[in-house]
């Protein structure tokens, strides 16, 4: 049985003893594990003296040592953080606070935007010497964080992640092929409102490694390139969208120190990833990790080989389930389907969230208990379409809601995107649908300057049936990205006239 105290807190406390070892590099300033431990203790003391009224505490997700120390202090004391992005509209953040009903907010900013709350200005607290004693009786069911993701209704929905979830994740991560070492210099290029950030700071901390963050006012991909070269980054998780932004500059970026790179958060196109590997980080081993927020960061892993990479429509396979996690592919009636067939992927195990914050309707839709071989198991319905091959490798085939039927034909939007990317090898392609007068129309977005779409359409006609030819091709020089670094499909959709 996993245990948060042993897997997470005791490990962190052990690392705090390495007084001179560097823990963070933030805005070109290094902080040691000792300095980190002093900030953690200062915040712990305050939480003990003025206990928040409830276990969920707002945290302004700044890019500084106090913010990371706040997360660790909250966890040691048994609280959960609810990240509030400093650059997101205040109204959205207030809606999140209201949903969770949190009254206490930890904020390292000099002037807080949260005037009607009990704000703890963590940057003003004096350093304290770390005391390793802590309350070991905190339930594994207590939460570690609540992340709000955009809901289809327009109102953000909160995913609860428990101490058990995080402990199970950390243990499973360490059992994958990727082994972090205390000598590693690790990239943390995700906002704290997105869960890959938790892997990006937590796993290096548990191994005594150093974490390099991105200041909010920097251009992420350019800053990341600087870190990779100047600080000789050895490990990092990145979204394929960021790699694509770097692509025009591949000739200007080269590092032989980068030894392990995880691609995650989006589907990974083989051509892009291979070019990234060969031209910029030739000594690295690359991994494709997949996971919904609801199953704690990652739940499948694939070590990308240098040859014979398994793909579907040019998208790299997502590999095999994490240790302790069961992945099942089912049909519309939630019945397991034959190997090789495509269906929705369900996942079960200690990494799966206890549910959404105060939303039983959503819980009823997203979770299902199946009786398999006489045993009841609770599954999360990922909404992702996948298939398994004879080796047990899982292929990602798109979102359930991106599979559309036109004239009775089932269409995978990824297939159209794949062929469009063959025509525009340097550009990204996204297909979105919109209903018009009862018909579903296909819109193909190309990340490219405006030009005559006819050669592309002619190319598509050579391989795709007529019903898969997009109604319109929309050129956009740069695709908008959302705060998680993924292509913002909602914004793209607004370009449909």
């Amino acid at each position, binding site marked *: 049985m996993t245990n948060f105290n042993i897997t997470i807190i005791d490990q962190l406390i052990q690392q705090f003893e390495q007084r001179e070892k560097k823990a963070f590099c933030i805005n070109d300033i290094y902080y040691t594990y000792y300095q980190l431990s002093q900030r953690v203790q200062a915040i712990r003391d305050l939480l003990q003296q003025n206990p928040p009224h409830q276990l969920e505490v707002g945290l302004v997700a700044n890019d500084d040592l106090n913010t990371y120390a706040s997360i660790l202090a909250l966890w040691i004391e048994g609280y959960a953080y609810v990240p509030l992005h400093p*650059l997101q509209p205040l109204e959205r953040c207030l809606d999140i606070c209201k949903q969770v009903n949190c009254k206490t907010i930890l904020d390292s900013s000099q002037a807080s935007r949260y005037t009607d709350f009990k704000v703890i200005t963590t940057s003003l607290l004096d350093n304290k010497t770390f005391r390793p004693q802590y309350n070991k009786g905190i339930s594994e069911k207590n939460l570690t964080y609540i992340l709000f993701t955009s809901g289809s209704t327009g109102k953000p929905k909160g995913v609860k992640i428990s101490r058990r979830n995080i402990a199970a994740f950390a243990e499973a991560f360490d059992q994958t092929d990727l082994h972090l070492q205390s000598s590693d210099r690790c990239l943390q290029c995700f906002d704290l409102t997105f869960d890959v950030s938790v892997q990006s700071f937590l796993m290096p901390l548990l191994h005594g490694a150093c974490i390099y963050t991105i200041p*909010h*006012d*920097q*251009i*992420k991909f*350019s*800053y990341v*390139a*600087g870190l990779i070269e100047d600080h000789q980054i050895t490990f990092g998780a990145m979204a394929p969208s960021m790699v694509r*932004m*770097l692509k025009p*500059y591949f000739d*200007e*970026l080269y590092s032989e120190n980068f030894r392990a790179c995880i691609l995650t958060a989006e589907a990974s196109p083989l051509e892009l990833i291979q070019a990234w590997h060969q031209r910029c980080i030739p000594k690295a081993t690359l991994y494709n990790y997949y996971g919904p927020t609801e199953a704690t960061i990652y739940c499948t892993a694939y070590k990308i080989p240098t040859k014979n990479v398994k793909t579907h429509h040019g998208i790299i396979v997502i590999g095999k389930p994490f240790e302790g996690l069961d992945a099942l592919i089912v049909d519309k009636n939630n019945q397991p389907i034959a190997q090789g067939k495509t269906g929705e992927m369900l996942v079960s195990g200690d990494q799966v969230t206890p549910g959404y914050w105060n939303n039983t309707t959503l819980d009823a839709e997203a979770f299902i208990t199946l009786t398999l071989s006489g045993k009841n198991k609770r599954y999360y319905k990922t909404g992702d379409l996948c298939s398994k091959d004879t080796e047990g490798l899982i292929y990602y085939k798109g979102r359930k809601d991106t599979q559309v039927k036109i004239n009775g034909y089932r269409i995978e939007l990824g297939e159209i995107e794949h062929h469009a990317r063959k025509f525009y090898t340097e550009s990204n392609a996204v297909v979105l649908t919109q209903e018009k007068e009862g018909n579903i129309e296909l819109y193909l977005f190309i990340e490219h300057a405006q030009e005559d779409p006819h050669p592309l359409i002619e190319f598509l006609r050579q391989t795709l049936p007529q019903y898969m030819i997009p109604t319109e091709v929309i050129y956009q*020089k*740069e695709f*908008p*990205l959302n705060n998680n670094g993924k292509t913002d499909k909602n914004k793209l959709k607004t370009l449909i006239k």
Partner: protein
Amino acid sequence: MERKAIIKQLQSIIAKEVKLENVELTEENTANDVKGWDSLSHIAIIAQIEETFSIKFKLRELAKLKKVGSIIDLIIKKQN
């Protein structure tokens, strides 16, 4: 090209990308002074500057393009 002429063109590029009617800039202004000029719109702004002035910035230069004065310096340097 004169600095004043460049700044005028920058004003119209930035206004268009951040969807404001007009933007008044001085050489001392940075991205933080203009509403909507965030890391996302910055990429579109850079692409637009490159196209307008027929220049190409290097990857490591992008990080320095936060201040209007530095953008102008680089444009002039690249055009010569």
